[in-house]
């Protein structure tokens, strides 16, 4: 829609440089620029993928920037089995999925209270969350560790019997840490939302929950989709918290599977590249799924005509 909206302005934009006929070259220029940049952005990844398809002996002999002699997916199979990736994938999902969902849920509600219900002290709460997000996570490591080793959990929740070395602890710290960022984003996003729908709902006697869940949240789809993509990528790729808050190898997330591929002595970078590509797949897939939502646009202006 925006393209159409911007359309009429385009000829005028080029007015200084040339006549109206410049529209087509301009489009071509745009595509050339975008294609070049995309290639520049993708090239390193494509090279990594290329390397992952070639045997180590070959790249060691001829260099990475050479024509292939053998291409195969053998490294992918090896990376998947050798690092115990299936188990680690599952672990990561056990951590990342609840953490992302709860983070987004809590953050949206807090943002709703600040930006929409306009509770007293809302500004203060916003600062608290935002500022908290600016704190470097390494600052918290030691106290969080000390705290978690002292919080008991029943056996059915954690076989370590403490928050330390359990998924609960890692999920909790992710929620605590990421909520700040999401509150901040959601508050700013909600401030920009039109109020008419919610006002109508209030007149109809809708409670806070209905205003939040039924009226406001659906309008936040683009922001939620963008946040979900980013948050998932971050939590998914995190290694700091899992490293310092867990000690059982079989509970470690998928980043640890990659460490398993990084040999102590011999390092087969091509194998590592294959593993990295495999590990990156879920985040990329999620991006493709959610992309539609945060670029699809919303009929926000509807009420304003």
């Amino acid at each position, binding site marked *: 829609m925006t393209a159409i909206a911007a359309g009429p302005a385009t000829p005028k934009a080029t007015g200084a440089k040339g006549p109206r006929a410049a529209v087509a070259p301009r489009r071509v220029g745009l595509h050339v620029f975008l294609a070049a940049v995309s290639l520049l952005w993708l090239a390193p990844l494509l090279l990594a993928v290329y390397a992952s398809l070639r045997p180590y*002996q070959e790249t*060691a*002999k001829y260099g990475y920037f050479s024509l292939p002699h053998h291409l195969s997916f053998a490294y992918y199979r090896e990376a998947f089995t*050798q690092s115990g990736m299936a188990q680690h994938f599952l672990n990561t999902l056990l951590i990342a999925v609840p953490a992302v969902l709860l983070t987004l849920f809590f953050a949206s509600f807090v943002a709703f209270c600040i930006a929409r219900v306009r509770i007293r002290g809302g500004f203060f709460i916003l600062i608290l969350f935002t500022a908290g997000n600016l704190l470097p996570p390494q600052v918290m490591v030691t106290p969080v*560790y*000390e705290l978690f*080793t*002292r*919080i*008991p959990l029943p*056996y059915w929740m954690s*076989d*370590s*019997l*403490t928050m*330390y*070395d359990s998924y609960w602890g890692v999920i909790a710290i992710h929620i605590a840490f990421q909520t700040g960022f999401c509150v901040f984003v959601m508050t700013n996003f909600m401030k920009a939302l039109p109020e008419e729908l919610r006002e109508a709902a209030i007149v109809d006697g809708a409670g806070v929950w209905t205003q939040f869940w039924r009226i406001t949240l659906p309008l936040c789809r683009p922001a939620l989709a963008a946040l979900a993509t980013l948050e998932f990528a971050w939590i998914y790729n995190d290694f700091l918290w899992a*490293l*310092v808050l867990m*000690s*059982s*190898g*079989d509970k*470690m997330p998928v980043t*640890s599977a990659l*460490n*398993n591929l*990084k*040999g*102590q*002595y*011999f*390092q087969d970078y091509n194998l590592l590249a294959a593993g990295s590509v495999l590990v990156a797949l879920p985040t990329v897939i999620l991006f493709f799924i959610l992309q539609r939502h945060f670029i699809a646009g919303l009929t926000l202006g509807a009420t304003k005509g």
Partner: protein
Amino acid sequence: MATPGPHDRTTSNSPTRRSVLRAAAIGAGAVTLPSVLAACASGSGAGGAGGKTVTFGSNWSDPVPKKGIATAIAGFQASSGYTVKTNTVDHNSFQENINRYLQGNPDDVFGWFAGYRMQYFAQKGLLGDISDVWSGFTGMSDAIKAQSTGLDGKQYFVPLYYYPWAVFYRKSVFAQHGYQIPTTWDQYIALAKQMQKDGLVPISFSDKDGWPAMGTFDYINMRLNGYDFHKSLMGGHEDWSDPKVKKVFDTWRELLPFYQQGALGLTWQESAQALQQKKTGMMTLGMFLGQQFGTDVSDLDFFAYPAIDPANGQDAVEAPIDGFLLSRKAKNVTAAKKLLAFLGTAKAENDYLSIDPTELGVNSSVVTTGYSPLQQSGAKLVSTAKSISQFMDRDCRPDFVSTVMIQALQTFLNNPNDVDGLCNSIQRQKTAIYATEG
């Protein structure tokens, strides 16, 4: 073994401790005792004083060593009837995490290194004394025993294997040019000059990861100032701005013109590749270098680091030892000690080495008939050594090495001429760090 937290190291063994502690926990609000509760969680299979299960934390995460360890453990399970629950964590995470691991929820037995890196944790009360296990060992030399002993004279460590450091080269390259093995510093430098003339980069060198350069420092220091001074320097008893230390850097500087270019941007694997491709002539590294060589490993050989001061000769060898420790928080000490006793036998080492032929067994009864030529020479090098050092990052305080020495050695390599400034800076930082002992 009931250790509520790192600040409280009291142990209680009274029969009613469970109820007492539970009451204490309720009173204190948030304190719990995982080990005690674990012992009470019957049927969980997680342990218990008389249980048949022993937990083992392994940092042998690479495929080959992992399989080697599994083979050794299987031997124990078969002969003892105990079940070993192995918790494998990738070696890097395991190392980064060791402080939290040992104070949190450690396994009964875990893999670690000899040297001060082990003694430090023993001193901090995080390791279990296994002197009784050691008294049953046979085939362990006094040197090995010394490396397994804490600062308090008790044994804490069960060694599995070691890997010596030396100067590696390709036999075919030396044969092609008719190079002789250098035994003195002058010969070493002369050989390097000759290699340069022959169009070879004399020495493969890399320090992107910060630790490979330490091996060269260790050797020059031991050759120049002797093993005792080196040990004492690593132990924090010497002044780093001592002229003796400055002399080490001054000597090292003589080698720099012969090093590979861009060493600080290279991993050791990359510079090992240069050696394999015959672009370079020599490389100072550990025996694990062979793992990078693939099928060319039969062409790989080494010589002992050349002598600098004839008084010290070539009698010290850097040979880091890997092995096992008992954690103080172990839940099943009886079984853990049985496991450790087994791991110190020649059988366990043979089991391990049958899978991983790039290391050397420490037990004198280890069957060496299957050793490769490289292993044979490695064993010979260590057995003729008068003294064994571990490695800078194993002989020295970890806080000092990782926050000061990595930077310092890289600074030297970037700017080799300001040795005075560098040594004084190291000494100042060392004073500050060592002041925080305890």
